[in-house]
């Protein structure tokens, strides 16, 4: 392979990796496959000359594709956030074209620049391991490519051609084997220095703790598929992600892995209040929260009184895989919690949900364990949820259109009109029974085939003055789980039924033998709980189950087979790169400072110990101080002598014009030619410095203009020096003395 081919291969590789990074960031398997295919194809056809009509055809196709893509996608891409995506697609297309139409070094530079743009856009979009790997590979590969393109461009200029124009291969291949070795060494050194600096800047870059910004942010949602609230304000398409959110190990009462009888519902957040102004569901105010400090060695119960854990108590062990969250995901009903590290948790008895108190510290939460009773006794429920004695007020819903719709549905089902104020208020058992019955009516209504489950809400257009729930129920009749759950909860509350939305994960895939369940972003779900007792809430899921479960199942990845390999790498990536924030920075720096301090202390203590040992009777006395002082003085003197010797040798070598290659000859010349250096020093002391480029004899002529006698003596010295330096003459002791006498004579003549 010629150097020309080598450079092209590197640039092709760079372009492919950059294209892959972009494709994985969005993600798009066809785009990734196309990037690789274009790279391979362009590399295989590099020697084939493309004719002008073919070039025009390719360029025309690309321009039409770009224009068509922009026109078709303008509706979705017209927002500011979508500009990088649009730019990325255009650049990727141009990069593909450029890989086929490469003639000059200028084209190679364009590939470098376009790859850089793609990498930046990919990094803007995603911080996944694969994208990160591509970015790291590109940053390393780009060092070599950039240096080689720069040298090749210069070589072209030195060769007579205009830089960046003309033939490609000749200039690259003109670089011989010896420069190539030197160039490789330089590239290696540059890469190492750049990597070291990058790491240093990366570590010291000012950051804030990641959780404070991203828990409720879009990036977190993208990573986990879970969001703590439900917002119906901006209906948008949801892309399923097979990102692993957490691993759940389900252990039976005997401590062995247990098989799930039904899908595991991991409750995360409970939302009870709908705000029609913001069109968002919110949790109720946490007035009766319980603060728990967990001990990593034992479980902390969530109640003030002890709960009987002897029967029907399971252990849910959670290992967080991505996007650590302050929300604790628990199956119904949690009775005790244990953090892997000491943590403060907040327990809300009304919703029976847990969360880490400090959102900032939740980033350090690697996992937790819960004791769960799937079918708790009434006593356990009462202790856990601490219901008040008074009957809660009947709820209502703030959107009149939904209330009317609920009324019509109930009337159609033969239920009494909930708006009829003449009906008597129901006592507790009747009210709970009514709640369950009415929720069942609404659930059946939503599960009818007239409502369609879809993740694509591009056509869910909002209308002025109409609430999204009303639009879902009466106009559009399609949506995903958040819309179905919102509709059921809204209909229930509009009918005076106590209902709330639960967001979390539903998973039914228990693949591993050890009872481990992989929870992915696609398992995120929302359902409804309706109150059917003082301390009893029943689950209603109005989302068409088959569709939701098939979506979740589709998200299971083929990479699961390699999880044993990828998980440690992902863990490393997540903790050291993707989730490296201010706290990790502080921790790393303090650890570094501590290590340095310990090293310094160790050295000092070693010195002191040795000194003490050398003192009398183990006391740090005069002898010890003398020992330390003598060591320090000796080291200082040795260093000073070494510096003087090195400087003197260097001075002589330069003055005598000796190379480092023939060491034996250089040593002899340095010994025998010392008189010439002394003579030059004497002349320099007299203000006659020898300019480096002029030869000794020319220097003699210059001296003659100022001092004839000195020039005469120095001329003799130069003759003798030539005999030593270039005539390979070896001097005996008498000749050396004679030369020294000549130098003395020179000094005399200079006075």
């Amino acid at each position: 392979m010629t150097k020309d081919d080598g450079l092209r291969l590197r640039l092709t590789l760079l372009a492919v990796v950059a294209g892959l990074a972009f494709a994985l960031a969005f993600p798009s398997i066809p785009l990734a496959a196309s990037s690789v295919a274009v790279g391979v194809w362009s590399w295989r056809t590099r020697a084939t000359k493309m004719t002008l009509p073919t070039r025009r055809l390719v360029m025309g196709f690309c321009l039409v594709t770009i224009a068509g893509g922009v026109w078709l996608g303008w509706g979705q891409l017209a927002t500011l956030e979508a500009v990088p995506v649009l730019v990325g697609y255009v650049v990727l297309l141009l990069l593909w074209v450029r890989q086929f139409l490469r003639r000059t070094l200028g084209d190679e530079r364009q590939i470098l620049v376009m790859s850089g743009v793609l990498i930046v856009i990919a990094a803007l979009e995603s911080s996944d391991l694969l994208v990160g790997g591509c970015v790291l590979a590109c940053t390393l590969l780009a060092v070599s490519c950039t240096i080689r393109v720069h040298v090749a461009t210069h070589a072209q200029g030195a060769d007579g051609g205009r830089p960046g124009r003309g033939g490609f291969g000749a200039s690259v291949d003109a670089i011989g084997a010896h420069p190539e070795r030197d160039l490789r060494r330089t590239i290696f050194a540059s890469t190492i220095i750049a990597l070291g600096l990058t790491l240093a800047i990366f570590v010291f870059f000012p950051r804030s703790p990641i959780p404070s910004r991203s828990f409720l942010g879009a990036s977190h949602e993208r990573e986990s598929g879970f969001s703590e609230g439900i917002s119906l304000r901006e209906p948008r398409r949801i892309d399923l992600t097979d990102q692993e959110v957490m691993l759940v190990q389900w252990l039976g009462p005997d401590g062995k892995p247990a098989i799930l009888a039904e899908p595991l519902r991991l409750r995360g957040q409970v939302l009870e209040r709908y705000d029609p102004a913001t069109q968002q569901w919110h949790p109720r105010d946490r007035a009766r929260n319980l603060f728990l400090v967990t001990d990593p060695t034992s479980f902390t119960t969530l109640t003030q009184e002890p709960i009987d854990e002897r029967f029907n108590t399971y252990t849910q062990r959670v290992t967080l895989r991505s996007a650590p969250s302050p929300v604790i995901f628990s199956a119904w009903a949690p009775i005790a919690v244990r953090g892997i590290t000491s943590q403060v948790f907040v327990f809300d008895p009304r919703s029976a949900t847990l969360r880490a108190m400090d959102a900032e510290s939740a980033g350090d939460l690697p996992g937790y364990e819960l004791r769960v009773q799937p079918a708790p006794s009434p006593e356990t429920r009462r202790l856990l949820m601490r219901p008040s004695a008074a009957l809660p007020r009947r709820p209502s819903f703030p959107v009149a259109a939904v209330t009317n719709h609920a009324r019509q549905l109930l009337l159609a089902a033969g239920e009494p009109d909930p708006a009829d104020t003449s009906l008597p208020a129901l006592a507790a058992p009747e009210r709970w029974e009514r709640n369950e019955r009415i929720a069942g009516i609404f659930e059946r209504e939503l599960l009818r085939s007239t409502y369609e489950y879809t993740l694509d809400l591009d056509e869910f257009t909002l209308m002025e003055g109409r609430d999204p729930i009303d639009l879902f129920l009466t106009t559009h009749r399609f949506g995903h789980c958040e819309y179905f759950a919102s509709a059921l909860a809204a209909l229930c509350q509009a009918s005076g039924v106590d209902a709330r939305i639960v967001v979390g994960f539903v998973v039914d895939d228990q693949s591993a033998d050890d009872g481990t369940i992989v929870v992915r972003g696609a398992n995120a779900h929302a359902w409804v709980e309706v109150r059917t007792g003082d301390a009893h809430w029943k689950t209603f899921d109005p989302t068409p189950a088959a569709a939701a479960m098939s979506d979740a199942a589709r998200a299971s990845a083929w990479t699961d087979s390699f999880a044993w390999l990828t998980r440690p790498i992902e863990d490393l990536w997540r903790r050291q790169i993707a989730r490296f924030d201010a706290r990790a920075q502080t921790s790393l720096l303090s650890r570094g400072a501590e290590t340095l301090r310990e090293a310094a202390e160790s050295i000092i203590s070693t010195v002191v110990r040795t000194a003490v040992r050398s003192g009398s009777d183990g006391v740090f006395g005069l002898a010890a101080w003398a020992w330390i002082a003598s060591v320090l003085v000796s080291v200082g003197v040795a260093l000073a002598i070494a510096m003087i010797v090195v400087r003197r040798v260097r001075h002589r070598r330069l003055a005598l014009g000796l190379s480092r290659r023939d060491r034996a000859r250089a040593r002899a010349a340095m010994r025998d030619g010392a008189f010439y250096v002394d003579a030059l020093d004497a002349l320099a002391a007299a203000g006659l410095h020898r300019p480096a480029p002029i030869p000794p004899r020319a220097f003699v002529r210059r001296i003659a203009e100022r001092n004839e006698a000195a020039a005469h003596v120095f001329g003799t010295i130069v003759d003798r020096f030539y005999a030593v330096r270039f005539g390979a003459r070896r001097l005996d002791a008498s000749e050396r003395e004679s030369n020294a006498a000549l130098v003395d004579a020179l000094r005399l003549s200079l006075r």
Partner: protein
Amino acid sequence: MRVSAPRRRYHWHPPGVLFLLMTVLVGAAAIQRGENLLVWIFATALSWIVVSGVVSGAMMMALEVRRIVPPHAQAGTPMRVKYRVRSRGRVFGLFSLSITERTSGLSGLPGLSCPMEPARFVHCGPGESVIAEGTLRIDERQRLLLTTIRCQAAFPFGLILKSVEFTQESAVIVHPRVVPIDDRMFRRAIAGTGPHAVRRVGRPGWGDDLHGLREFRAGDPLRSVAWKRSARADGLLVIERAAATSTRMMLVLDLRHPDRGDPARAEEAISFAASLLAHAESHGWLFGLEIVGAEEAPVGLLRGRGHLIRCLDELSVLDLSSIVDDHRTSAGSSSPAHRVWVTLGDASLRRQSGWRTTLSLTDFAALRKGAV
């Protein structure tokens, strides 16, 4: 040659500025988004800028350059300047270096620069020397002073341009522009139009030209007898040949002008004179030069390349402002115009003998080889 400590500087150039701009944008995005991958890219970009400075800075620290210039150059002809570049580095060599010059000329303008095709080389290994060659284009005769060697490189990434300036003074005498003269036209101009054309007188000798007739002397070869003339005379007459001599040319350059004239025309006249001198040298003639009104003494009649260079040196350093407008030094003409007096004869004649012709700039155009 004067040498002083090198001066090192860093410069931004367009690719570097663009890269810096992109780095700032990525940095802002990294701060705003808090994405660590963006921080990584930002850190990489910053490290590239630092490496760009450090690697090439270290490279330039180990640089030694020495200029090798020819003693003479000719106006209008590219002058090749060589540079011996040595890398004193122990581990890393020099890459992608360009060398240019800073010059000053006789006109005294500081930093008068001549267009230069930089000397470039791709690589010089550690401890090695290479020779790089640049081309300087000089359009005017002058005593050119090359003052500063400027080496610059944007290695390794092409982001930051580093330059090192070595003050090394070298003088080069730039001869006037020389154009080839058409010998046939020149001879015709000399013979036909000269106002002071005089007879040609020579010594007898063994050349080819006819010197005259004389009476036969004992020992003369019979082949030299002019039989026809002898028949009409009383005795035998023999043909006497002229001695073989080389042609000589004394060139008198008159640049006096009442109002100092047009400097461009004066320069053209100087170029004309230089061309005639070169023509004379190429034909092996004896030639000399006198500049009317100049302080310099006339250059006597000699032949050869060295003598031509001496004459051209005189013309190169001629300061037009120092021409004395004194008519007593005139070669006989009262015409106040730039012109060249050419006296052509052979070596046996004194200076005033031979053809003496005044040539003007109009003749210059006609005498150029290839002129119609």
